[in-house]
């Protein structure tokens, strides 16, 4: 890993508190290099979403705040910026749980994604077409109000909406959730594609470790508000613990879900 200050995005030792009393992140540091895909892994409640919110400055609405540490994007401190400022600079978050604008149609949803763009109508139309190409399903449902589309359609809409902003860094929170396997592959192909062709960087929080590590360059594993492990994606996917607990592979390969007879105590790096 390079020295953090040369990084595209660097999160330095942040602490996050919700509601003035609930301490959730206890000193998290990570960095994303320009043009890379970084995966943030970890169990439920580890603090992945919180980390992403801290980066995109969406904590306020949840009554959370960063009490220590700093977040820098391209060498600029971002804590004082509004989320809108960040979007203008190219940092866009796809929120966990979809958050489509229920009363707007799918197409209107996508167009709001282009709100900060200033490069003209034609360019926006072009991106819109691109998104429709990525997700043909959205095109067929373009005139439905988002609230009346299926869960997966909403997820696609949320991802597509973020892409409409022509981002430089996308914070993807659980992009695969609720998507059919084919679409999951597609989403990650899109990620790869954008990353390769347009040098868009990604920081993704993902439960589907298998897929995530396949596409990511680098990974962090979080637990209980701390980073407990980090390394290149290939390294991580070969780590025995990661294999067992995040990929469901044990020595003799993948085990049937039916056969796991006992609830296992989770591996804890800290305890």
């Amino acid at each position: 890993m390079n020295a953090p200050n040369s990084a595209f995005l660097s999160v330095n030792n942040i602490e996050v508190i919700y509601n003035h009393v609930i301490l959730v992140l206890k000193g998290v540091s990570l960095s994303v290099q320009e043009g890379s895909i970084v995966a943030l892994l970890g169990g439920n409640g580890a603090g992945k979403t919180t980390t992403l919110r801290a980066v995109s400055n969406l904590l306020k609405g949840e009554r959370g705040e960063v009490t220590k540490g700093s977040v820098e994007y391209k060498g600029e401190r971002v804590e004082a910026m509004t989320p809108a400022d960040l979007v203008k600079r190219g940092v866009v978050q796809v929120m966990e749980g979809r958050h489509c604008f229920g009363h707007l149609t799918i197409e209107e949803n996508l167009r709001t994604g282009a709100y900060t763009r200033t490069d003209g109508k034609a360019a926006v139309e072009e991106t819109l077409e691109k998104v429709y190409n990525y997700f043909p399903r959205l095109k067929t449902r373009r005139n439905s109000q988002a609230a009346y589309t299926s869960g997966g359609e909403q997820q696609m809409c949320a991802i597509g909406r973020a892409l409409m902003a022509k981002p430089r860094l996308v914070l993807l929170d659980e992009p695969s959730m609720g998507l059919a396997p084919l679409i999951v592959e597609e989403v990650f192909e899109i990620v790869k594609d954008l990353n390769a062709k347009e040098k868009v960087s990604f920081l993704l929080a993902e439960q589907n470790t298998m897929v995530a590590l396949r596409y990511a360059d680098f990974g962090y594993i979080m637990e209980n508000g701390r980073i407990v492990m980090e390394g290149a994606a290939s390294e991580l996917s070969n780590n025995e613990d990661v294999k067992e607990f995040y990929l469901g592979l044990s020595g003799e390969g993948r085990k049937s879900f039916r056969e796991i007879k006992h609830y296992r105590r989770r591996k804890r790096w800290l305890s």
Partner: protein
Amino acid sequence: MGFFIETMLGGLMTGMLYSLVALGFVLIFKASGVFNFAQGAMVLVAALAMARFSEWANAALGGDSLFLANVIGIIGAGVVMFIVAWGVERFVLRKLVNQEGATLLMVTLGIAYVLEGLGQTFFGSEIYSINVGMPKDPVIMFEGLIEGGVMINKEDFIAAALAAVLVGGLTIFFQKTAIGRALRAVADDHQAAQSVGIPLNKTWVIVWCVAGLVALVAGIIWGSKMGVQFSLVTVALRALPVVILGGLTSVPGAIVGGLIIGVGEKLSEVYIGPMVGGGIEIWFAYVMALIVLLFRPQGLFGEKIINRV
């Protein structure tokens, strides 16, 4: 017959005036999901500012040009409304991103108090008048057609026309422009709106400004009709059934709702009222709205309330 028409017309005109106030509610609700109980106070403050500024201007100009004084008054009041919008965003809404409707509603009640207090402190609590040259005396028309003719108020007609123009413009603004779309997005989900880069602060200032200007128009018209004084805030209570009958999220709904309520309450008061002792129009308006809601819970033109699992 003539009387029936007059009642209808009277109802339509009053309805139009309700619509103007209702419009303020709808605007802010549609664009930020806030049910703004301070709308009545905004009407009051706008009207007070207009009345006092034009009064002062008139005095300063030596009473020469009422027109000029009125223009200064309107500009002054417009500035006041801008300051209100800015202040509301800066000191209140900014700190309440992503909160529940009930909380926001309550906060607007707080804003209403502050505005009422400030308005009266700066502009006084007497009765002031706005004179924008509205004709006050009635004209009788169609005397040849209907016995006794039909009495019409030009003032009401002008007001209604103004309201119609305002509504038409705002409808287009909301449905067709990018900023209108962004405003609707904000109403749906503050956080998601932030996440796509819609600057909540700026949009809120814009909406409250627009609502402030609508309040100003309402204030000028109501003020010139009934004098500028504290009771202006209560016109908001009369506009509420209009808002829900038309649908909280629909600009045209505010107009249609206003017309229905206006006509309904006047007809009921005139024809049913005497049978039960009179004074029924206010509850009649609410009951009418309620009945409509039983069939269309989102009001006549409101967006369907989404309720999915």
